[in-house]
């Protein structure tokens, strides 16, 4: 399957070409190039997926294929970075997800971004992102993943900061990059530790189940915790950063400063699930060598999910609501992985998580693109500036509704199936976990419909321009993604992606399904009551629970904590004193030595008095003293 290399190379070429020509070409040309390239690789990915899933199954297990692998940099004889392509069920699935969403976003952007300055730059960055993201998922070794992980981060930085004259966008981009960079430090150290003990980066070796690789980790521990836990925990920190897990989630809401299609692509569908993908990729290690870390991941995921869902209920910026919703949903995926075991029925959480990743990518992209369509129409992100848009934007309305139903977990939309699998895995793990996650599912339904009704129903806001339906280029992706969202639930996902790459038949757990659907329906009803028409309920609730409401609106002050740490502690209490120390202690010491010499020089000038007799006196004393010293010693 050598042609898969093209999937990587084409977007890179597209980036280079678009980046170098810069503003020499007409914007349309650039957009077309980008989109066509994406179209080609999407087709290639689909073909690859078809070929892989239909032809490369041996004894019921999908094989791992490495069609391409070159040594890029050699550290030691055993540690070398290869760049290559690894095809296995999850990477192939990711190829499909990424190319699809990316393709849709490219098309959508032709309409959405057409009037922006720097259109070529935008497409160049999109190509760069696609390239990096694809490189990430097909990585054959953990270090390749890290490389592309960083590249993804920087493309995200560039795209968030696309409106670079807008200070908030610049700040958001910086924040996103630095927070994820900080998390990547964990990832890097994790890789350091892991590779130190296993002497390899290669996923093939690491996940082969060969225990000899891990021989040296046995009994090795640092500060009472086994080295594998350290390694895997640190690697998870990297994943947590990219996937906006608590407490590293702060960058994601701000990242909504970027263009909306970017949010759809990067901050909803693809990049933010890289953390999930990372854990999934190393899942065999987590399960075998450090189940406690895996459980930790589950708890972190659950907490983040709850936390984000609560915040999502009170946000008024529609993109932020979606951002928190994304965080919450990724939490679901993390929980799915965290509660999973390996293989067969044990591994249902893994499968469910991947499934949810897939469906979520589609419907969340849809939601974002829909939101983009709305924003395009009303030129604002604020809910209060919207309302009653269903009349003006029918397609957007319907597709958005479909997506909301999917995320709320209403059958037969795709979200129902994937979420249900996660919930049942949770219940198997522990009833409390199941209950929590079900509750969060309910919250999800509530805030999504709050969003939906606030946008499309409710009181109509006075618009300066009459809102209108989006152009074809924007509508097409909406329709396409809506279709996928409706149908994706019926994919027999267990046949394709499971933790042990063997076949697994999904069967719905009807108790769990019923409960979750009931709760979802209740939540939706509540949302209908509160937000379909203007009502006083939300306000009353807000005043009743003013503390909670205020805290949630302010995202529980996590940003403030960060600002405190960065501005007050690092900037003012470390960096500033260090800079001061450098100038006034170290440098001053050096200057002080010079100053002292000068001082001495001035002080002893009296010796050179100009008086011959004094000279002779010193002369004589010198003679006598030297004689005495030599004679005595």
């Amino acid at each position, binding site marked *: 399957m050598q042609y898969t290399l093209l999937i990587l190379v084409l977007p890179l070429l597209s980036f280079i070409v678009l980046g170098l020509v810069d503003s020499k070409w007409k914007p349309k040309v650039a957009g077309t190039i980008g989109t066509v390239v994406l179209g080609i690789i999407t087709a290639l990915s689909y073909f690859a997926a078809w070929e892989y899933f239909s032809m490369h199954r041996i004894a019921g297990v999908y094989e791992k294929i490495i069609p391409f692998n070159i040594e890029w940099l050699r550290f030691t004889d055993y540690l070398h970075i290869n760049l290559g392509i690894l095809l296995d069920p999850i990477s192939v699935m990711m190829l499909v997800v990424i190319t699809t969403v990316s393709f849709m976003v490219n098309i959508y952007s032709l309409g959405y971004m057409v009037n922006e300055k720097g259109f070529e730059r935008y497409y160049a960055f999109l190509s760069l992102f696609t390239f990096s993201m694809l490189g990430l998922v097909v990585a054959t070794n953990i270090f390749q993943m890290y490389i592309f992980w960083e590249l993804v981060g920087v493309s995200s930085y560039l795209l968030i900061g696309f409106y670079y004259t807008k200070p908030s966008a610049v700040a958001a981009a910086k924040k996103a990059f630095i927070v994820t960079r900080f998390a990547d430090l964990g990832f890097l150290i994790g890789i350091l530790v892991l590779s130190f003990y296993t002497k390899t980066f290669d996923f093939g070796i690491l996940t082969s189940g060969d225990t000899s690789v891990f021989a040296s980790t046995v009994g090795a521990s640092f500060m009472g915790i086994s080295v594998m836990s350290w390694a895997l925990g640190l690697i998870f920190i990297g994943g947590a950063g990219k996937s906006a897990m608590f407490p590293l989630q702060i960058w994601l809401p701000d990242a909504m400063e970027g263009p909306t299609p970017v949010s759809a692509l990067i901050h909803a569908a693809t990049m933010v699930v890289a953390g999930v993908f990372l854990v999934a990729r190393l899942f065999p290690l987590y399960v075998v060598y450090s189940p406690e870390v895996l459980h930790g991941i589950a708890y972190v995921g659950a907490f983040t999910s709850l936390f984000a869902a609560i915040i999502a209920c009170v946000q008024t910026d529609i993109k932020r609501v979606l951002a928190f919703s994304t965080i919450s949903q990724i939490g679901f995926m993390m929980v799915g992985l965290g509660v999973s075991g390996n293989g067969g029925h044990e591994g249902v959480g893994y499968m469910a998580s991947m499934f949810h990743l897939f469906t979520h990518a589609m419907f969340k992209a849809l939601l974002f693109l829909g939101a983009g369509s709305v924003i395009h129409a009303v030129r604002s992100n604020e809910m209060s500036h919207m309302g009653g848009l269903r009349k003006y934007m029918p397609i957007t309305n319907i597709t958005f509704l479909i997506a909301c139903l999917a995320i709320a977990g209403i059958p037969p939309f795709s979200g129902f199936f994937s979420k249900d699998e996660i919930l049942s895995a949770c219940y198997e793990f522990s009833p409390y976990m199941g209950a929590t996650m079900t509750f969060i599912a309910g919250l999800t339904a509530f805030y999504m419909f709050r969003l939906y009704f606030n946008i499309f129903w409710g009181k109509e806001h006075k618009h300066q321009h009459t809102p209108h339906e989006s152009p074809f280029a924007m509508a097409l992706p909406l329709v396409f993604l809506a279709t996928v969202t409706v149908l994706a639930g019926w994919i027999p996902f267990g046949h394709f992606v499971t933790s042990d790459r063997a076949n697994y038949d999904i069967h719905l757990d009807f108790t769990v399904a019923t409960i979750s659907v009931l709760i979802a329906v209740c939540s939706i009803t509540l949302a209908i009551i509160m937000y379909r028409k203007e009502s006083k309920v939300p306000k009353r609730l807000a005043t009743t629970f003013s503390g909670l409401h205020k805290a949630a609106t302010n995202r529980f002050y996590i940003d403030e904590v960060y600002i405190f740490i960065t501005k007050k502690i690092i900037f003012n209490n470390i960096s500033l004193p260090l800079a001061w120390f450098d100038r006034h202690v170290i440098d001053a010491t050096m200057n002080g030595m010079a100053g002292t010499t000068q001082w001495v020089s001035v002080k002893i000038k009296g010796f050179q008095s100009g008086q011959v*007799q004094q000279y002779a*006196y010193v002369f*004589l*004393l010198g003679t*006598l003293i030297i*004689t*005495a010293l030599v*004679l005595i010693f």
Partner: protein
Amino acid sequence: MAQQIIFFVLAAIIAIFSILAVTAKQIIRSATYLLFVLLATAGLYLLLGYNYLFAVQIAVYAGGVMVLFIFAILLTNRPGENVKTELAVRRVAAGATALVGLAFCGHVIYWNIKKVSELAVQADITPQQLGHSMLGTDKYQYLLPFEVISILLLACIVGAIMIARKR
């Protein structure tokens, strides 16, 4: 015995007038005391049997150097004016240093010198001998220094005249 007495007289003259020479208030007195010291030194040379040296000492110092001094003093001094000494502090410091130096050197010399008190018998140094060794080129003969010092004398004369003459 006579030798001893002469020696002590000379020694006393030297010691006393040396000190007087460097402490006298008037410079002309100082010069006179110096003359006494130089003459007494010449006496010591005679005592040791170096007649030639005695003659040179008297000729050069008393005849030459002292004349120079007197001229210089007369040229530069208004008569009767006292020569100032340095501040007391410096005098004390100089005196103390000189005394310390004296003690120190005296100590070292006294304990390390070969103690001889008998003069070896020595024949008189005849003018012939002197002439020989002054104009010889072997070891212990001094033609070369003699020639070189003539250059020095010439240079000094040239230099001194250059400095001292008008224009």
